[in-house]
């Protein structure tokens, strides 16, 4: 057979077969075992890491009323690399956006990361979500992520509760827990209790097919982690009182803060003008924020802790207490008052003279308090005015003036209570004395206080010498223990017997025949208070009032400031009185006063 001579060629052919088989095996070994990038690509194809956002903790008032809850919304997410053959027009139609808007969003997402998911359209309503979900399988690279929005059923307490917003790149860098698009508390207790309320995000790994349809969990959810819900906050806020306060302060600038002196729990915390907290939620947030931010009456300013006001006459008892404590006056000490003819500070009231501390508080006598202040600044126990000033100042610091109170609210300002060095600088060392700084005797001049400091001061007086830092949250989550504030007892450097003196005086503000707030006493409740009519740089006086009640067993301390409204007795005192009545009796009987207060528009004073 002729062709037998070519039989050796079978070797060539078989060798070729085996060699190619071998090459293929080497190649397979490479792509299956050595090069792991294919596994990664396979996971990118199939796996969708869906973050499980925990519901943020709810916020309750002291009676179990809901202040904040969550509502479900949906974010449409996109992974730019996986967007493939998508009907752009359809998406634009569903979301009601323009083609340019589409391209802009895509560019933003791509700039963030082509491989990672970012929000294409945020906070889609349930209805729109319904339409999109039906067609989602046609939008390769898109998926929907459920989220929650904050809702405020009573529309109160905007400044107190604060708001949440998207994290900034800077925050992400500092706290890697957060990813772009996450929400974080920006202000109020949303900020203060961010860590407690946010919970812990979970992760679900889902599988999708080539059409981006969900085809089940990855390995039966073996690697999934559940989201841990955020802790609820139980606050000391009285929602009804808060709502009532906001009603009273409508069309007025100023602030009301009320606390329970026994615990430091804040009962009411408002800054006026207020705004509906629901405005700063969801897709309308950006627009509304800009509107509020540009409003000349500054509704975003939290006056309760950031408004630094001259305390005016509400400050007088502080001087009395220091004078009594230092022994430069006694409860029997009488000073003379020439009324409007007094020098260097005039008196705005006509009353008997000389008068003691009780009467001086009842009638808010300026000359008396100037003389108390002068006595302090001339105390022979100390060698110079600087030393006496420092002693005076330390007493006031112990009452919570001139420093932050370390509450649970962010951005608290410390008011102003300048150290003696400031006067050394202004007037030169040894060149200033009681006369130079006399305005401090009646709560004017350099001294500035926040409403929170004033109410804390009232609370300290109510407690006869101590206070707990004012705070919003009493307990967190299922832990029924009180927050740390309950253990932080601050003791003022004034003995109770001296405080009794000013309490007596403050009681007579309501009860005395010449009391500045006698028009607003309530028969069933003994109240102690002090009016303040503080001069401001604008030339218009702020109406101030501090009070606590009932005197025998104080349950509420309150501070009311109405900016540029006139006498303390005209606005702040009746509002404080109504608030106390509301809180202690749950019902306001003085309808006429109430109506006058609610209807007054003092914005354009």
């Amino acid at each position, binding site marked *: 057979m002729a062709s037998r001579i*070519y039989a050796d060629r079978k070797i060539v052919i078989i060798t070729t077969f085996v060699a190619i088989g071998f090459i293929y*095996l080497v190649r*397979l070994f490479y792509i299956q075992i050595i090069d792991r990038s294919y596994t990664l690509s396979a996971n990118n194809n199939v796996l969708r890491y869906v973050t499980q956002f925990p519901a943020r903790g709810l916020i309750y008032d002291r009676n179990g009323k809901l202040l904040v809850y969550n509502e479900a919304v949906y974010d449409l997410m996109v992974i730019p690399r996986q967007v493939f053959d998508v009907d752009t027009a359809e998406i634009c139609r569903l979301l009601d956006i323009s083609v340019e808007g589409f391209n802009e969003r895509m560019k933003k997402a791509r700039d963030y990361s082509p491989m990672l998911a970012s929000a294409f359209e945020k906070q889609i309503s349930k209805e729109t979500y319904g339409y999109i979900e039906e067609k989602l399988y046609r939008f390769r690279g898109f998926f929907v992520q459920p989220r929650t929005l904050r809702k405020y059923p009573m529309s109160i307490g905007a400044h107190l509760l604060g708001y949440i917003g998207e994290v900034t790149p800077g925050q992400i860098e500092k706290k890697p827990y957060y990813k772009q698009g996450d929400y974080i508390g920006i202000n109020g207790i949303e900020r203060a209790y961010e860590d407690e309320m946010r919970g812990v995000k979970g992760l679900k790994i889902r599988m999708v097919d080539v059409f981006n349809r969900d085809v089940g969990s990855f390995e039966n959810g073996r690697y999934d982690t559940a989201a841990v819900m955020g802790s609820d906050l139980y606050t000391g806020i009285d929602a009804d009182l808060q709502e009532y306060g906001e009603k009273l302060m409508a069309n007025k600038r100023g602030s009301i803060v009320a606390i329970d002196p026994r615990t430091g729990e804040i009962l009411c915390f408002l800054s006026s003008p207020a705004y509906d907290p629901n405005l700063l939620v969801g897709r309308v947030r950006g627009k509304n924020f800009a509107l509020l931010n540009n409003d000349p009456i500054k509704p975003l300013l939290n006056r309760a802790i950031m408004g630094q006001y001259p305390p005016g006459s509400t400050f007088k008892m502080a001087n009395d207490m220091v004078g009594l404590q230092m022994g430069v006056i006694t409860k029997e000490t009488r000073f003379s008052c020439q009324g409007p003819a007094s020098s260097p500070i005039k008196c705005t009231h006509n009353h008997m003279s000389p008068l003691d501390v009780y009467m001086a508080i009842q009638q808010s006598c300026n000359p008396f308090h100037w003389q108390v202040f002068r006595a302090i600044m001339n105390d022979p126990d100390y060698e110079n005015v600087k030393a006496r000033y420092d002693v005076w100042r330390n007493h006031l610091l112990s009452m919570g003036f001139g420093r932050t109170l370390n509450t649970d609210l962010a951005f608290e300002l410390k008011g102003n209570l300048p150290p003696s060095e400031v006067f050394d600088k202004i007037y030169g060392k040894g060149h200033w004395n009681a006369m130079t700084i006399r305005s401090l005797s009646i709560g004017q001049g350099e001294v500035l206080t926040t409403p929170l400091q004033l109410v804390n001061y009232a609370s300290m007086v109510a407690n006869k010498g101590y206070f707990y830092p004012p705070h919003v949250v009493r307990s967190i989550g299922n832990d029924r223990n009180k927050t740390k504030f309950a253990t932080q007892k601050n003791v003022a450097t004034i003995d109770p017997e001296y405080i009794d003196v000013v309490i007596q005086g403050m009681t007579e503000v309501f009860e005395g025949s010449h009391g500045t707030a006698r028009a607003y006493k309530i028969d069933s409740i003994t109240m102690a208070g002090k009016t303040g009519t503080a001069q401001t740089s604008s030339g218009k006086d702020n109406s101030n009032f501090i009070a606590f009640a009932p005197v025998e067993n104080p349950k509420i301390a309150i501070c009311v400031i109405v900016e540029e409204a006139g006498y303390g007795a005209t606005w702040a005192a009746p509002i404080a009185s109504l608030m106390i009545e509301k809180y202690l009796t749950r019902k306001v009987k003085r309808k006429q006063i109430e109506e006058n207060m609610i209807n007054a528009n003092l914005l354009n004073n």
Partner: protein
Amino acid sequence: MKEQKGIFRNIDRTLVFLFLALVLMGWVNIYAAVYDTEHSSILDMSQSYGKQLLWILTALVLGLMVIITDAKFFNAFAYPIYGITIFLLVMVLFVGKEIAGSKSWFQVGSFALQPAEFAKFATNLALAHYLSALDFDKRKRSSQLIPLVIIVIPAVLILLQNDTGSAIVYASLSLVMYRQGMPGSVLLLGLTLMILTIMALLFDQFIVIAVIASLLILFVFFIRRTLRNILSVIGIFLIASLFVLSVDYAFDNILEQHQKTRINVLLGKDFDLKGAGYNVNQSKIAIGSGGFWGKGFLKGTQTKFNFVPEQSTDFIFCTVGEEWGFVGAFVVIVLFIALCVRIILIAERQRSEFSRIYGYGVASILFFHFFVNIGMTIGLMPVIGIPLPFFSYGGSSLWAFTILLFIFIKQDSNRLQLV
């Protein structure tokens, strides 16, 4: 060898075993590739795995029919069989149904038949018949031309159906010619031209020509520098250069865009992963993600969730690679190589020239499919749509490959009888 009785006498059991192993593995992998929980029964006749079982059973019947047919029938009727398939290939151009751009199918009811698949064994039969004829004289010019014609006619007809992949398969029969005495230099020349083509497409044509020139100059130093040798070298240089230039010209002016893109993707010049490169990329991802042991039966994600196209037909190997890992791929490759080598070895033991040549044809065709199909899935070959024999879903191809193989098994079982 123990004498066997009846029709199964002298059947090579290794070949039958390899055949059954591949068919069964193919069936299981088709099931895995298109598995969905709503149709979880492998016998579900509405799904391709259910239908494939039908194809397998009928293929076995066809195999059996081949075995009970007289061995001499195939040699004797080689030309008529060839003629019928050529006729069918022509017919399909007129009455065929177009599926996925190829007009290669006869549609009878819900049943589609692809004559191109059957033309493979028919051509092989005709070729073996011609080359083994007693009056065959390979020195005659016609003896060199006629085998070429036998091969080229079906190839051209299939090309006309727009089924490039199946047409290229016929090139594999050059291995048969090689075994029959075609000079090795012809194959070598083919290989050289292939390398030159790839170089011309990959690099700038003048760089390629410069490289050829330097290689030839180097070559001149090692040979006797007679005038004749030098002239030959210059001639080789001119021809090679002309070839490179014409490849470039042909690529730019004759090929259609989708063909160009496919070639570019293969050569790594085109990284368009969403266009033409998508299939290969997804295929590599599926296989590559299988790892050593694979993801496990029915646990493949890339194939099952349709990331890999044609996952039950041309890209069936992806399921093997993904679900059974390197181990599974290794087994399949070894089985295929074993099948082809076994066929060559058996072919060489034939006393009948026809049987041997036919055997070589079978090995060449099967190997070529294996070579191109698996090479394609792992990115070593261009995307040419030809099935993986016995594995890929499809009645026509399974039937045709079964007949192709079983004719050889029949011839072999008959080898001890007088020619």
